């Protein structure tokens, strides 16, 4: 079981995740239509690229936009959550060992203390994201079951991972649970809202091009995000 999950199982879930995302990305671009979207995507490449890059960069920068600054608490949750969910899977020492074993390569490592902090950060911010969903009427009205499922899928590998890390309970059971939840997450990515891992960049670039090419990007300094 363990061998299957860390061998073919892992490859399969990573494959589904990456290929799935690739397909979604290709479909996204293919579905763009200059006339229906009313954006001359290819006619003004310079303005388009500038608009796209600005639209992505300002939104990735912590407190880089008016919207983030207007909601500092939410911004804090968002960044704490996302730094963890992105860095831990890629840079945790234990994960790197698997990579080293399989591909013979490894890159930057997280030291254990930092990794602990980031993981706790994910769990704590997830709890607050959950509470926020329940407590704030403007978020509650938007929330569907899908949102809870996605949030749960996203934090499950972190909860199980920390249980292994602190060796609470049956080691091999929790290790299996960790691997399974991680692989479930990977598989879910292309089929759920988690596809935003890629589509966030697509969507932001698209709106950036819209403003950059059509809605004023070529008149003066461009939009203040």
């Amino acid at each position: 079981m363990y061998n299957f999950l860390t061998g073919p199982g892992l490859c399969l879930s990573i494959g589904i995740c990456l290929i799935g995302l690739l397909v979604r990305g290709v479909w996204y671009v293919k579905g763009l239509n200059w006339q229906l979207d009313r954006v001359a995507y290819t006619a003004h490449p310079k303005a388009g690229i500038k608009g796209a890059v600005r639209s992505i960069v300002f939104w990735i920068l912590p407190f880089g936009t008016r919207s983030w600054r207007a909601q500092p608490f939410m911004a804090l949750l968002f960044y704490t959550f996302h730094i963890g969910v992105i860095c831990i899977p890629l840079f945790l020492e234990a994960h790197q060992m698997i990579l080293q074993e399989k591909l013979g390569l490894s890159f930057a490592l997280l030291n254990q203390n930092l990794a602990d902090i980031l993981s706790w950060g994910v769990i704590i911010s997830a709890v607050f994201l959950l509470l926020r969903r329940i407590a704030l009427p403007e978020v509650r009205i938007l929330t569907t079951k899908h949102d809870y499922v996605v949030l749960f899928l996203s934090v499950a590998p972190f909860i199980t991972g920390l249980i292994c890390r602190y060796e609470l309970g049956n080691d091999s059971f929790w290790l299996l649970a960790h691997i399974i939840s991680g692989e479930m997450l990977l598989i879910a990515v292309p089929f759920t809202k988690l596809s935003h891992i890629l589509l966030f960049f697509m969507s932001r670039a698209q709106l950036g091009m819209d403003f950059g090419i059509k809605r004023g990007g070529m008149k003066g300094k461009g939009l203040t995000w």
Partner: protein
Amino acid sequence: MPEGTLCNKNPIQTQEALKTLLSDTRGKKYYEEMKSIEVDSRLLWDTINKTFHSRMRTWLEICAHCGLCADSCFFYRIHNRDPKQVPAYKIQSSLGEIIRRKGNVDNKFMWMAMETAWAKCTCCNRCGLYCPHGIDMGVMFSYLRGLLYQQGFVPWELKIGAGMHRLYHAQMDVTDEDFVETFKWMAEEYQEDYPGLSIPIDNVGADIMYTVNAREVKHYPEALAEAAILFHLAGENWTIPSSGWEQTSLAMFAGDWEACKMQVEHVYAAMERLRPKRMVGTECGHAHRATVVEGPYWAGRKDGKPPVESLHYVEWVAEALRTGKLKIDPSKRIKERITLQDSCNYVRNHGLKEITREIIGYIVEPGYFVDMAPNRDHNYCCGGGGGLNGIGIFREQRNKALITKRDQIIKTGATLVLAPCHNCWDAIRDIEKEYRIGIRWSFLKSLLIDMVEIPEHLKLNE
């Protein structure tokens, strides 16, 4: 009843149809019929499959349901943070639901969608600036309006407006003759004060071709005179087209894309015919959006640009002041607390945010200008955008929607509001009418007329 005699899926294409609909005061019978017309779900779903592609599909799908867009919408704020006014909720419960049900929605649903698309959103696109995923609900509401229009669920005034564009190439029953005659008449009226004032009609190769809003012709002819006088004083080589002079598009507010295309192609044809160096449009926001920003796409122009470079009136004024073509008499500069309305349609949606402030620098005595907060790209809609100003059945919602702007203006302490946009101008007039906050409001032209210096050679010989 599948279709009504007044309320149906057919656009207005004949004078009779237009007259009949107009004679139905306030759309009484029209809305009565709307209560029982049928939804053609097949048509709805077919249209969606043809026109609803990755950008909007992705928007609806990846929406994180995070609610960050809530506070960005002025409707949400003035309705005591009613969750039903959150942009993401409004679009998910209307357009999103139509997609989920594959077009199988009923009459009642369409009523709700109509109210959502026209009375709970002015397509100001502000929410698009506040969503982390770059989801622009204004764009989607505009799309939804198109679906609703196709099914006959469109406010009475906008059905008429779109019909006017189809029949007159103008938002009102103003013919080409009316336009030319009115412009000429206005020039005659002012010739005594401005010797040599004339209206160049259909001059080929002029530096500027001027286009207007039909209601200036019908209700505010002085606006035409003022434009003529300012071009005259600035020594511009300008002209008006005898046809293709209407820049506005109520068809855009109605979601009648076919009429949008017809309307804008008519203006472009005038550009092709007269080959001016540039086009300048009057002080109207949605007209600029329709003819300069969105129009090229309706007309299928791949570079997304009109046939000749096209300016909003404020761009021309700023340039004329900068280059000294127009000179302000320093003693006549405004010495009254004044604020400025940033129109969504050419500020947030066309980047003209600094240019209006440049103009302020010339015409207002330092210390008298106070900006609203927020302003520029982030300014709030006047409350009457997207056609809401003119929709009778949603008057109550519109009047409430004015509150945001009212409070923004009150906070500046200004007694004069500069509104270089017909829609904003109306909304601000109605703020005073409804709430009596003690303000005056003005276009740029009428302020400039009183302030510009008359060059020696154009002066009246007394």
